[in-house]
């Protein structure tokens, strides 16, 4: 019973704190300030998501086939060195990638999407590759011995069994992507970075937070959406969250 009382007291304390924070933010005019930025936030969230969607979508479309291709037995010799190349690609900080792509592609959406695409590519390719390589060899032998063609083996056995790992890669990649999009503002592609960086420059915490809080929320929401997609798409027999 003491623990229950403690938990109850804790909950009460949080409620009181939230209430006080509400009173404080209302009285200090912070709420009004946030409401002032609402149209900007709305416009920039759409722009932000659009950047994520383009770069992330492009990365998924390229990385998954790349991972599949590298996992084929005929590619075994070059696969690991290709993966190393991609690895080196990720070691370069995203800001540097953006700067590099700006120097080749100029400013605006195109270089931003390209830079984000490069940063997002590797986790997906890597997880697709390791996921497929990690499929139990006994399954592959059984699939071959039963008389499945290489394509049938890939689609009916290998991919379904690697899907959970592939989705984990997509989750990581898109979390990185959404967190990196604010940097795209620096090369003139817009997004919530506009509020964050301008807020920092002007030392305007409310402006900064109007950019930072939606960015954080977007990251959480997108992560949840992917988790739900994974939950629904990964077959039940190989889905740890549905075991």
């Amino acid at each position, binding site marked *: 019973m003491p623990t229950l009382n403690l938990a109850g007291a804790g909950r009460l304390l949080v409620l009181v704190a939230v209430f006080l924070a509400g009173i404080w933010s209302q009285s200090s005019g912070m709420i009004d300030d946030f409401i002032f930025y609402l149209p900007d936030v709305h416009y920039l969230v759409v722009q932000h998501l659009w950047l994520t969607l383009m770069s992330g979508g492009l990365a998924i479309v390229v990385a998954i086939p790349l991972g599949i291709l590298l996992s084929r037995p005929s590619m075994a010799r070059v696969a690991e060195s290709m993966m190393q190349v991609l690895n080196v690609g990720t070691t370069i900080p995203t800001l540097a990638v953006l700067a590099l792509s700006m120097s080749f592609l100029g400013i605006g959406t195109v270089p931003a999407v390209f830079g984000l695409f490069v940063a997002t590519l590797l986790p997906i390719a890597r997880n697709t590759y390791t996921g497929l390589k990690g499929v139990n060899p*006994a399954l592959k032998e059984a*699939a071959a*011995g039963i008389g*499945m063609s290489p394509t049938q083996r890939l689609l009916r056995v290998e991919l379904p069994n690697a899907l959970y790992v592939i989705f984990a890669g997509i989750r990581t990649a898109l979390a990185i992507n959404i967190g990196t999009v604010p940097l795209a503002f620096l090369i003139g592609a817009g997004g919530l970075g506009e509020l964050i960086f301008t807020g920092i420059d002007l030392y305007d915490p409310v402006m900064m937070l109007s950019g930072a809080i939606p960015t954080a929320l977007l990251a959480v929401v997108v992560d949840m959406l992917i988790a739900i997609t994974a939950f629904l798409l990964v077959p039940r027999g190989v889905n740890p969250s549905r075991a």
Partner: protein
Amino acid sequence: MIRLDNLTKVFDTPKGAVTAADHISMEVPSGEICILLGPSGCGKTTTLKMINRIVRPTSGKVFINGEDTSSLDTQDLRRNIGYVIQQIGLFPNMTIEENITVVPKLLGWDKAKYRERAREMMRMIAMEPDAFLKRYPSELSGGQQQRIGVARALAADPPVMLMDEPFGAIDPINRAVIQDEFLKMQQELNKTIMFVSHDIDEAIKMGDRIAIFREGKLVQYSEPDELLAAPKNDFVESFLGEDRALKRLNLVKIRDLASEEIGLVRPDDTLATALQRIESYGYVNSIVMVNDKRQPVGIINAAVARTTHGHCRDHYQSVPVVVTLDDDLRKVASLMFAHDMTWVPCVDDDGRIVGQITQRAITHHLGSRYRAHSKGEDNAKAAEASPSPAIKE
């Protein structure tokens, strides 16, 4: 029927060419189980996997039911061969039903037909269709999974099956159960089966024929009893083990060695009669007493008969052991040792005494083949040519 003709596999390794299978030629008649047996690295698995081209032969040919398989498309070939592996290899992303119906679907059966087939297979392996078809492999025990593995291999009713140590990963108790079930199924299905094993006891139990491999070569290919009675060389002999005479006990049914002649007494006989029969039949310790239906009701001890007067009905003890005609010699031998008996009465399905099996008959049976073998090559060949006659005492 499976026929291998000079099947050879040479692997190129950094250390040079390694011959994993060296001109293997053998034939498995239709409806028989052939066990490929040998220590690890002897080429038995390579030979098996060349049949469905998981391993590509370097040279040589495989004929299935007389047809040269090298002209067939790999996928078509494999879809018509059941394949069971030690690691089971059920697809964890598919339900049991989907796993069983994989091959029928690949062969383009229509839905109603393959779904009915899945239910039929489940009944065949003695698993409740409604309880299991919608479940996933991870929800089943190892033994259940391998039953499904066998069902999947049999689903499209292939004439030929390849089994690579199928029961190797299952605990000994379940393994024996699955082996028995499989043998029972095979009696109805009559598939031609190649079966890799490294377990001599499994080979003797399951095999109609046993092929012993060593270092890529086929050393001896014969029926189990023949193999145990007449191993071709020292390697085969040591591989079969020092106790190979005892292993033969598994292969012989009491029916083959039982003698119809047995000394009995009735409840109304006197103990003097009993003693006389014990001596005339050469029993040392006791004699069986039967009722009007020839069912054993007890035994009369020689010591009691010697020292007491009266009728058998007043001085009998309970019958220690009886065996049926379908039991194997191993069971009898074990009972004889346990109860210190030189003979055991045999009963039919109704429990009526039909004869006896004696220790002498067993040792004579085991010994006759060895003697024939050791008399010299000519005699050994003659013994191999003619099946050993059942010895009647």
